[in-house]
């Protein structure tokens, strides 16, 4: 610790957003970086806790106090090494992670956590700009070929770790470009796609082979892959969106958020349109679902020039401020306002959508009611409409952002014929990441269900370690299989 009383004498200062009026006209990063001298000062606020709650609260267990200390000493180079020790892609998490670390920070007991995410982002951005991020070739190859299905953060982290152990991973991706949700799910104004490209370049140099446009289970079966590879890691997403099957669902103008966001991202990337465009321009847009995907839809719709944007959330409005005595260091339930919210949206809470109304097959309005929670027959809370609370909302475009129920059951999952969990995820435990099928491993959202990028990275890394250990422990098995 360079400054034991830094937390008392230095005020928290974080990155700010560019002005909403300005940023809403482009797809550039909404965040304005902090001067690095200020980042250094902010790192001095870290108290190097005996129990660093941030470090445990972080899914990849970033060594936050260690790199905070190094940054405060202006030792960015070593800070980068310590950051990379636990996190393959801090440039992603430094931008899109909700930062449970900051919620858990000891200074968050009174709302002034260390700006951990900003420090993280600055370390890695600097690492790239200084040219410190270089391919790290394994000194020896093992000759083990491993197929990684899915190129989202889990698949990428897994593949990079495997490559660095000397194995030879190939990443299969059904889309035309690598990155999964990072590529087509998150808008550019939150994650610029060039960040992905430079990482991929590094990974290719490290020996990772990428196979886009290969839909495993469709273009090639798992069995076929297992002929050529020592093993397979299923690292796909939880892509099955939650639907709202009420009357009028079939009307046009009602889409899953991911369809909308993917098209938008392709357009921003200058890629050819695929199918019918979905555009919010001049429309009254209703986003159903109050999470991050919903926010991404709002931001995109505003950038496309929507006439109005309304967000509906079934749950009641959470408190503005959490009760720290009972919540810290956990992730608290409280009202969160994203940059997209700031750009213009009506937020409605405790709202049930009961029906979509339309005209000429095109949605025109939502019929809604206020929702309340009552005790159900089994003692669990159930949602029901408040009587006589019905109202209507005008709608030209309705986007479902109510989360995902699990991985798609076709494609790789079907082809692998692995056992599923009751929730419909691929069943595998986190100590070995092995599925019910020999030589098939699984990690990421496909295994755990929808989650954060940072969890995907963690699973990818852990799975790679499990694969490495398995290969070391049972070296003969794959060879025997290959002879076939």
């Amino acid at each position, binding site marked *: 610790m360079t400054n*034991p*009383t830094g*937390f*008392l004498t230095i005020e928290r200062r974080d990155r700010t957003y560019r002005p909403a009026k300005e940023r809403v006209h482009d797809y550039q990063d909404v965040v304005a970086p902090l001067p690095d001298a200020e980042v250094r000062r902010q790192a001095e606020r870290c*108290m*190097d*806790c*005996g*129990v*660093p*709650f941030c*470090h*445990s*609260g972080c899914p990849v*267990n970033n*060594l936050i*106090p*260690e790199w905070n*200390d190094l940054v405060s000493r202006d030792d960015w180079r070593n800070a980068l*090494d*310590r950051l990379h*020790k636990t996190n393959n892609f801090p440039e992603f998490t430094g931008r899109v992670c909700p930062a449970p670390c900051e919620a*858990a920070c*000891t*200074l968050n*007991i*009174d709302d002034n956590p260390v700006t951990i995410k900003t420090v993280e982002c600055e370390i890695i951005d600097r690492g790239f700009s200084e040219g410190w991020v270089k391919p790290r070739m*394994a*000194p*020896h190859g093992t000759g083990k070929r491993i197929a990684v299905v899915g190129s989202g953060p889990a698949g990428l982290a897994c593949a990079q770790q495997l490559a*660095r*152990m*000397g194995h030879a991973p190939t990443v299969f991706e059904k889309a035309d470009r690598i990155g999964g949700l990072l590529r087509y799910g998150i808008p550019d104004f939150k994650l610029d796609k060039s960040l992905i490209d430079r990482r991929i370049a590094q990974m290719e140099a490290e020996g990772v082979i990428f196979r886009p446009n290969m839909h495993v289970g469709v273009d090639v079966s798992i069995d076929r892959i297992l002929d050529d590879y020592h093993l397979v890691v299923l690292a796909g997403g939880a892509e099955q969106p939650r639907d709202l099957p009420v009357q009028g669902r079939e009307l046009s103008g009602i889409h899953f958020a991911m369809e909308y966001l993917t098209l938008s991202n392709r357009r921003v990337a200058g890629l050819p349109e695929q199918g019918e465009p979905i555009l919010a321009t001049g429309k009254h847009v209703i986003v159903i679902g109050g999470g991050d995907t919903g926010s991404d839809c709002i931001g995109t719709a505003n950038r496309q020039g929507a006439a109005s944007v309304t967000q509906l959330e079934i749950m009641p409005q959470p408190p503005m401020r959490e009760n720290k*005595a*009972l919540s*810290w*260091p*956990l992730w608290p339930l409280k009202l969160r306002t994203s940059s997209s919210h700031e750009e213009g949206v009506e937020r409605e809470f405790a709202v049930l959508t009961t029906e979509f109304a339309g005209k000429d097959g095109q949605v025109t309005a939502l019929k809604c009611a206020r929702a309340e929670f009552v005790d159900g027959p089994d003692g669990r809370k159930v949602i029901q409409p408040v009587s006589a609370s019905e109202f209507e909302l005008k709608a030209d475009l309705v986007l479902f952002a109510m989360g995902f129920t699990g991985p798609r059951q076709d494609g790789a999952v079907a082809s692998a014929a692995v056992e599923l969990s009751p929730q419909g995820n691929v069943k595998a435990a986190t100590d070995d990441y092995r599925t019910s099928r020999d030589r098939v491993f699984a990690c990421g959202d496909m295994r755990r269900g929808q989650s954060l990028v940072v969890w995907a990275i963690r699973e990818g890394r852990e799975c790679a370690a499990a694969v490495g250990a398995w290969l070391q422990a049972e070296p003969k098995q794959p060879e025997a299989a290959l002879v076939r």
Partner: protein
Amino acid sequence: MTTPPVKQGLYDPANERDSCGMGFVVHVKNERSNALIQQGLQILINLDHRGARGADPKLGDGCGCLIQIPDALFRAWAEEQRVTLPSPGDYAVAMCFLPREEGAREVAKERFERFVRIEGQLLVGWRDVPTNPEGLADAAIKQMPVVAQAVVARGPNVKDQDAFERKLLAIRKQTQNPLADLAEKKDLPRLADFYIPSFSSRTLVYKGMVLSDQLGTFYKDLTNPLVTSALVMVHQRFSTNTFPSWKLAHPYRFICHNGEINTVRGNVNWMNARRRTLESPLLGADLDKMWPLIPHGQSDTASLDNALELLIAGGYPLAHAMMLLVPEAWAGNAQMDPKRRAFYEYYAALMEPWDGPAAIAFTDGRQIGATLDRNGLRPARFCVTDDNLVIMASESGVLPIPEEKIVRKWRLQPGKMLLIDLEQGRIVDDAEVKSSLAEAAPYGDWLRDTQFNLKDLPAAAEPKTVADDDLRLLQKAFGYTEEDMKYFLAPMAEGGDDPIGSMGTDTPVAVLSDKPRLLYDYFKQNFAQVTNPPIDPIRESLVMSLVSMIGPRPNLLGHHAGTHKRLEVSQPILSNQDLEKIRSIEETLDGAFKTVTLDATWPKGGDAQALEAAVKRLCWEATEAVLADVNVLIVSDRGTSDNRIPIPMALATGAVHHHLIRQGLRMQTGLVVETGEAREVHHMCVLAGYGAEAINPWLAFDTIGALAGGDSARAEAGKEKYVKALGKGILKVMSKMGISTYQSYCGAQIFDSIGLGEQLVDTYFTGTSASIDGVGLSEIAEETARRHRSAFAVESTLLDSGGMWAQRVTGEAHAWTFDSIANLQHAVRGAIPEKYRAFAAEINEQSRRKLTLRGMLEFRTTADPISIEEVEPATAIVKRFVTGAMSFGSISREAHTTLAIAMNRIGGKSNTGEGGEEPDRFRELSNGDLMRSAIKQVASGRFGVTAEYLINSDEIQIKIAQGAKPGEGGQLPGHKVDRNIAAVRHSTPGVGLISPPPHHDIYSIEDLAQLIFDLRHVNPAARISVKLVSETGVGTVAAGVAKCTADHITISGYEGGTGASPLTSLLHAGLPWEIGLAETQQTLVLNDLRGRVTLQADGGLRTGRDVAIAAILGADEFGFATAPLIAAGCIMMRKCHLNTCPVGIATQDPVLRARFTGAPEHVINYFFFVAEELREIMASLGVRTLDEMIGHVELLRFVDPADHWKAKGVDLDKLLYQPKRDGPRCSENWPRREVEAPIDDQLIALLEQGPAFVEEPIGNVDRAVGARLSGEIAKRYGHAGLPDGTLRATLTGTAGQSFGAFLSRGVTLELVGDANDYAGKGLAGGTLIARPPEDAPREAGDNIIVGNTCLYGAIAGEAYFSGVAGERFAVRNSGATAVVEGAGDHCCEYMTGGTIVVLGHVGRNFAAGMSGGTAYVWDPEGRFMSCISDGAQIALDPVEDDGDLQALVQRHFELTGSKRAEALLADWRTVRKQFVQVMPHEYRRALAELEAEGTAIAAE
């Protein structure tokens, strides 16, 4: 019981300690009489309170006396027996304790007679010694041997009496040494009982398991007028156990001893290592018959006696031999005569000091004397009468001698010797004895010619440096972590200090850890508690020394040589350059030394067998080298590479050291280690403890070099500071055990091993105590190989984070984690039982994951559990809960009062910690809450310990040690001492406060009894508790504490501890409470003492399960510290020592204190949750009350961790051992002993009557006079006390210890005579006067009037002593004013306030650690300067304004009639210039600041 118990469960008789009172009376002119013997017996009776009694009040710990051979008695016997007795000096008497069983007795006698015959001496006959066992305790009678004396005449083959004595030794050794084996072989177990208390032609010992007043009646000889002697040496024993043993009574053949030899393990090892180098022209072939010179399993005194008799037999004069064994502190003593220093330095290479607190009386029948350890840690007072008697004893006043006959009263001073030569008929003083010996040989010349200091040798070749690329790999191979860099190496290289941390440790012991741990982690440092004191290595640096001798040691008995080459280093850490000097020393010193480097690595891929082979190879190479005349071995792991794994250096060192000892070759070579592994202080200490004479931590140096980032000046400075930090740290670790020299620490094995397999310990760390079994070579091999593998694995080149200290997910496991803290806090704040259950489940699950020893214990749940309603209610259970000692000062008032209120509400107890308590907390609040802590702690600093503080308690806890840093003191820096803290501690704001490592009134077990006696007098209603820390042998200490009449004993685990502590101690000292508690329970049950005391476990208790296990292992009560703090908001920042606690607990910063959100309800909720969880367990075990559960180890079972790669060898069955005794297993509310205080009672009766005056005689058995009165005054009138002059008592005679302790304002005690130790302890406003009677034929100013450690922790009041005081006068004085006419060493040590006037000489180390107050010393000869402590932060000035001083001297004169004061006042104008005023810088600055503040306030 018929025999003393053998090793069983965790109890090991080897841990027993004893201490005592001793004395002698001698007629200087060698006039023998029986009257003198009666006087000796009288001394014993008057020292009775220094001994102890066990469960049976008739059973003492034994006593005895040594006299000259009473020729008349044996002549009469010879006549009667019709045998011929040679003339005196030509026959010897063997005092024999023969086996009671006839068969064994006959064999014993036959053996003895045979060796008499073989050695050419003549048996005259056996004399039955008349004894009278009437009045002895049953146990003593059952054990009583058949006492007989064998009379042996000098044979024709010995030329004189000295040669005769040597033969007698050879006979005794040959008779006794093989007895144990013989007993087994002949199947005569009682044969081993045969014991020879003395066998000499000059002296005779009568001793046994008798009370002091029984010795004379038991041995009828002693009252037989035919029995005369000109000297009597007596001893009263205080043992920590209650097992009768006739052998263990003192005196031994030459000595009796009060104190303890801390280094005895090493001393015995080294003595036995001399086998091949020892040769004596005098003993010749007889020497070989005497092995083992010191048999194992003896007491420290018996061992010392064996060493002494060897030296004497080898031709050393008695005094000379004592100087060798117990040298003065000579290194760095500028005041010492250079010849004497040369003498000591010369012998330093021959004999490692027998170090520890010791007052030793010794005699060979021709001379008698006494000597004191280098630090003067035991009292020894003597007086000389006008009719040629010298009386020396642990106390003054043990023989009633009319004052007018006493021509001199003095004391033994640290390291000094008193010798009476009966043949010359005179007293030989210390200077004469020592200078004559020092001048007997040209020691200085010899040293000049033979001794080389490494620093004077020319530089050798540049050492290898590690290439940058390899540095990281090597660091990883040796297990370096980021934490090592950040918390250890960098701070040491930058600050030059051993780093500090806080909040204890919550990680598993090494054997239970999933991580590969360094072998050092399996060793826990021992520390002194109760039976001996730790030392303050900073403030008392004058006794400390890091000097090490490398290389072969000369023949101990060939002392007339002076040709032996020796290599000295001023401290044991060698730089890389130093090591090269040693490596090439053969060329530098022309072959006087020859070195060889032994490779301590083993090949990659090997298993345990490969490691074992490598260790064997290493040992074999060592032997070969020594036999080839190599005399310095360098054991080195420099050969570490990707193909070679380093052997753990502790293993390599211990293996070579013990191997060479076993081969008798160890003394022929030096042992130096070159290691990349050792880096922390603890590592160095382990290596030193197992025989490394010097250590080169090469990789640590290279790492520090690299940390400097290419700045070579910074690198060099960093390395120097690192060495300095290690040196300080090693001194601290040594001093914890009370050891002051590296030479006696080296090889002394002052460690407990935890989790090392027995076989491993026996082979490589022979003699180390192994509390629980554990790993063997294969697990160690695996751990080492794992480190090596990870270093050369491909994934990451970065160092691991570590996580031992600050938690990391991939690092070492911790109990306090994100989840456990979050769940506990949410549970108590929201009163949510589910959250508590989640918390307890995690902690208890951690236990199963082997974070703790108790994790391997499992309840034996019963087939028919009871309903939870039948279990005693939680409200009853929580009354047994207490919160840990945390001082106001270390934690905020908010946090402190929150705990107190909570505990008072539920009927539990909170603890003040050290540092007093604000008096406003003694009164109830309007809402009925009470902020008073029920437990008042008395710690070594005695801050705020007033009579008022003591009386406002339900329990008074004497903190002997604390879990986080046992054996160490503490320090509160000046900036933390704000007005409030200063007020409650009775000190000055802004002035730093030091708590010394020892209680300066507890250097020994009988001292503890005295302090308990004092405190009980002040507050007879309070329980007296003693807090100990778990280590091997704590059970035995606890038994001793119980015998000191304590009501309550706390056994604290090493995990515990808040506040600041050096990381070295925090992580590496002490054992888990499970071990200490179980050992204590077993020992107390075995001693029939269990029912008398309440036992408390403390240190890392967190859940109901923990409580249940503690109860079953023997705890009646349960202490919690960290958990209730966490309930109140602590989040384990571990920044207590920085004052930056962000939740307002461990801080005094008002801004941070405002952040405190804890409430009593949180703490209460926590304790009730724990109690409810406990009740569920109790129900499942079918027990209704805790009393049914306590000590019932059958309720637990040990779960063998067979599945764990490392812990699989652990065996906790010893913890679950139940001694076969019927007595109670839990506390039985033993009635407290009524304490008598007739003088006090008389004064108390006068209390309400206004001014009163009494006159009474007083004796040394009247102890703590004034204490009970003061408690009573404080109860009625508070600290303010009575108006001055209300009560006055004039007492005539010698006052017992603690005269005027805690004396309240309004009382004056005037003593006509003298006082013993601790006069004016805790003086709280009263006035003490001591003066000699007017008719005393001696100068008051040249004679001693009060003993050691007077005015310790005094708070207010006045003292006037017309005479000289002993050592440590006014130590930790907070505010008393005193005048004295001379003082011993360490005067004004740690003083923080008050005024001391010394009208005479002071000893060395004046004002050490003095941070406040003023002293005036009259120094007409200008010698005072040389007495000032080296590190003292004080200003010496002439007295400018002498008005106050003159008034004090005037008052001294008026009150005592002091002739010296009178003379000074008569010539005041001259004299006043001869005074030196002493004032600490810090104090002066603080006073100025206060004054400025005061002015500022006034101006407003």
